[in-house]
């Protein structure tokens, strides 16, 4: 918890700094809006297409698989942190290695299936 109180102070400082800058800008900055200033612009060019375009549904599959392997990493982190400690426990050393091997093996199966079904290819 003690490390987190320092984090809290930093958060307050950062948020305070950002809010102060925004409020000062709001109070002191000149504001002369005009129709031409409010127009959307793209690198100074006249806008040709609407920025609201639909994404390809293919991104969605990638996103789902990303989440699955993200969660795999979530399980890997505590295992990696504890691995040295596991090795000092004679009764757990072998199991600690095999359990992660089984876990990765099952998920590797999923990756193989995804690969075989051409999920990694864009077309």
């Amino acid at each position: 918890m003690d490390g987190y109180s320092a984090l809290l102070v930093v958060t307050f400082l950062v948020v305070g700094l950002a809010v102060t800058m925004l409020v000062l800008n709001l109070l002191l900055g000149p504001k002369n809006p005009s129709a031409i200033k409010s127009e959307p612009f793209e690198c100074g060019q006249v806008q040709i297409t609407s920025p609201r375009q639909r994404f390809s549904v293919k991104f969605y599959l990638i996103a789902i698989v990303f989440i699955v392997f993200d969660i795999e990493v979530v399980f890997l982190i505590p295992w990696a942190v504890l691995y040295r400690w596991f090795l000092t426990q004679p009764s757990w050393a072998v199991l600690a290695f095999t359990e992660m091997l089984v876990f990765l093996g099952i998920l590797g199966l999923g990756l193989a299936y995804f690969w075989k079904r051409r999920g990694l290819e864009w077309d």
Partner: protein
Amino acid sequence: MALILFFVFAIAAVLSGICVAFSPFGNNPVYSAIALIMTLFFLACEFVLLHATFIAVLQILVYAGAIMVLFTFVIMLLNLSKEEIGEERLTLTKVVGLVVVLIGLTYQIGRVIWAHKVAPVTLHLTDGGPSNPAFGTIQDVGVKLFQDFLVPFEVTSILLLVAIVGAVVLAKRKI
């Protein structure tokens, strides 16, 4: 101190949760998604107050990071304009949903009041913290996960495998 922070984060979480449904900035679903990220962030803060630091990190990493990617993708995939969404109408489903929520809310509030009448709850204002100082750290969670909850951990991998297969079957049906 912890109690004050609890209420600050709780109120912030509830307010940003309300912003998900009723965004004060307009009807753009992206604002709702950002408000949802704020809600998840404040929930992570609550997890820190509960000494569940590893879960707090996961809350931000997995929910605010990965799950919100999916949400944002759905918003961008559909990318409905105002004309496509159409006028908001009061449908039967919405009325039924509202009634069910109100009934559930009344029931829960009634239960809390009843429980308080039967056995008055005293609020513990001092936070002694867990007896084990390592509680909630990555080591503590890891030991629990890889020793006590070994089978659920391995079953999780099968669950994730099912998720991959399901996603492929749904999205790549044509092949």
